[in-house]
C-alpha cells in the first residue's frame, strides 16, 4: 500500500474528518451562517484505536449526537479514515433523507397564497425522488462501510453494531417561523444541503488515501454519489433561483423519473438494478 506523507492540506482534511466538520452538510444549510456551531455538534467521539488504525484515540467517526447507531471508528490509519469517512457520509445521507421528509411536509402544508403552490405537486414529487436516491446512496455506503470495518479488523459480530441506522433532522430556526415555511425556502434548504454534500463527497475522495483496489473503489463510490448530489443541487438551484421553468413535457408520465435520472454517476455493482444503476444505463441519443 502506498501511503503518502501528509501535506498541510491532508492534515487539515484529517482534522475535519475527525471532528465531523465535513459532514454537517445538511446541518450547514440549516444554520446557513453558523457553520461552526453545526460542526461542533458532530463528531461525538469514537471508540478508540484499532490495530490497523495507527495511533488510535478519541476520533469522532463523525457520529452525530442524533444518530442512533455507529460508535465511531478508532484509529487514524488509512483504513480507519475510510471507515470514519464512510460512516460520516452515511449519517449525512440519513439526515438528507429526513430533511426531504420534513421538506415535503412543509410543501404539503403551504397555503394557497404561496407563489409556488401551483408547482407544489411537481416539487414534492421531485423531492421524494431525490429522497429515494439518497436511500440508494445510504444502501451503497452501508455495503462499503461493512467492508471497511472488516478490513479494519472489526470482529464480524461487531460490524453491524458499528453501522448507523438513522440520523435526526433538526429544522433550522428560520423554518420554525410559520411565515417562513414557504416552498421557496424548502428549495433553498435543499439546494444548500445538496451543494454542501457535493463538496463533501469530493473532499472525501482525497481523504481516502492509498493505491489499493479497495481505496480506489471507495473513491469511485464517493464520486459516483457526489456526482448525483451535484445534479440534485443544480436542479434545485435552477428552480429556486428562477433559472429554469417547467418545460412543455413536465407533465408527462415519465417526467419525474427523468429529473436526475439515476442514483449514481456510474453503476454500483453492489446494489441490484435499478437502485444501483448509473448514467451508463441511459441510452445515447446518437450512436
Amino acid at each position, binding site marked *: 500500500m502506498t501511503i503518502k506523507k501528509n501535506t498541510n492540506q491532508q492534515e487539515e482534511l484529517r482534522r475535519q474528518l475527525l471532528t465531523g466538520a465535513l459532514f454537517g452538510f445538511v446541518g450547514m444549510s440549516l444554520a446557513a451562517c453558523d457553520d461552526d456551531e453545526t460542526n461542533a455538534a458532530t463528531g461525538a467521539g469514537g471508540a478508540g484505536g484499532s490495530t490497523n488504525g495507527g495511533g488510535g484515540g478519541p476520533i469522532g467517526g463523525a457520529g452525530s449526537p442524533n444518530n442512533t447507531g455507529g460508535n465511531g471508528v478508532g484509529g487514524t490509519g488509512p483504513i480507519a479514515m475510510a471507515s470514519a469517512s464512510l460512516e460520516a457520509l452515511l449519517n449525512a445521507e440519513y439526515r438528507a433523507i429526513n430533511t426531504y421528509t420534513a421538506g415535503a411536509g412543509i410543501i404539503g402544508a403551504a397555503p394557497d397564497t404561496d407563489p409556488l403552490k401551483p408547482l407544489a405537486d411537481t416539487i414534492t414529487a421531485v423531492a421524494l425522488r431525490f429522497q429515494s436516491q439518497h436511500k440508494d446512496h445510504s444502501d451503497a455506503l452501508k455495503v462499503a462501510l461493512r467492508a471497511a470495518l472488516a478490513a479494519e479488523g472489526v470482529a464480524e459480530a461487531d460490524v453491524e453494531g458499528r453501522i448507523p441506522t438513522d440520523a435526526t433532522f433538526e429544522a433550522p430556526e428560520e423554518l420554525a417561523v410559520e411565515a417562513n415555511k414557504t416552498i421557496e425556502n424548502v428549495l433553498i434548504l435543499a439546494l444548500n444541503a445538496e451543494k454542501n454534500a457535493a463538496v463533501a463527497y469530493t473532499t472525501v475522495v482525497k481523504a481516502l488515501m492509498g493505491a489499493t483496489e479497495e481505496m480506489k473503489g471507495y473513491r469511485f463510490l464517493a464520486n459516483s454519489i457526489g456526482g448525483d448530489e451535484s445534479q440534485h443541487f443544480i436542479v434545485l*438551484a435552477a428552480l429556486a433561483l428562477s433559472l429554469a421553468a417547467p418545460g412543455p413535457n413536465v407533465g408527462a408520465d415519465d417526467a419525474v423519473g427523468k429529473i436526475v435520472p439515476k442514483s449514481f454517476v456510474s453503476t454500483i455493482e453492489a446494489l441490484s438494478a435499478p437502485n444501483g444503476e448509473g448514467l451508463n444505463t441511459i441510452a445515447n441519443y*446518437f450512436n
Partner: protein
Amino acid sequence: MSQLTRRQMFTRTASVAAGVGVALAISSSARRAGAAPTAEDITTLTGILSAEYNAINLYGAAIADGTGLIDSSSADAATKTAVKTVATHFQTQHIDHANALKALIGADAPAQPTTLSEGYLPTSFPSVPSIVEILQIAADKEKQAALAYADALKAVSDETTAQLLSSIGGVETQHFVVLYLLAEGIIQLGTGASGEGLTAEEYANIVPTSFITTNENGGSLEATFPNVPFKIAGLT
C-alpha cells in the same frame, strides 16, 4: 460538402475562438502542493484531457457565429441566443478543466488540437441538426464525460489526482442534467429574478462554477458559491 468536412470546418473555426481563452503556458506553481500522479495516472489524465479538448471543440462548432451548428438550425433568434449563451458558458468551463488537467500532467500535456477527433461525432448525427439535436449530442457527450471521470477513479492511485477528477466530473454531471432536461423538454430556461429573462450572471449560475472543490484554474462550489439565504418574511 461531406458531413465530416463540414464538421471539420466548424471545429477549425471553433478552435480558434477557443484557443483565445486557453492559457497555453501553465506555470509549475499551478501544480497543487502534494500532487504526485503516477505514470499510469498521467496516462489516464492525458486521455481525459483529450476528451476535454473534444468537448471544447464541439461547443466551438456549435456556437461559431454564422456558420455554427446553432446558427445553422431553424430555431428562432431568441432560442439561438439563449442556447449559444449556455453553450459558451459550458465551453469556458471545459477550458478551465483542460487547464487544470494540463497543470497536473505538467510539461508532457498535449496541446489542444484544432479539430474534433475523427469519430467523436457519431455517424447518425445530422449535418444540419435542430436545436434539440444539438442539446442531445451535448447531453450525450457530457454524460460520457461524467462516466469517464467516474470510472477513472477506479484507476488512478494518487489522491490529489483523484480529487481533481472528482471535482471536474461533478461539474460534467451538472452539464449533463441541464442539457438532458432541456432536450427532454422537462425544463426550459427561466425568466430570472426580474421575470423578464436571464441576465448574464443568471446564465452563468445555471452551472455556477467550473469545479466542485477549490482549484486555482477556476471557481468552485466550495470557494465561490455561498449558501443561499432563506427568504425571511417581512424582509425584502
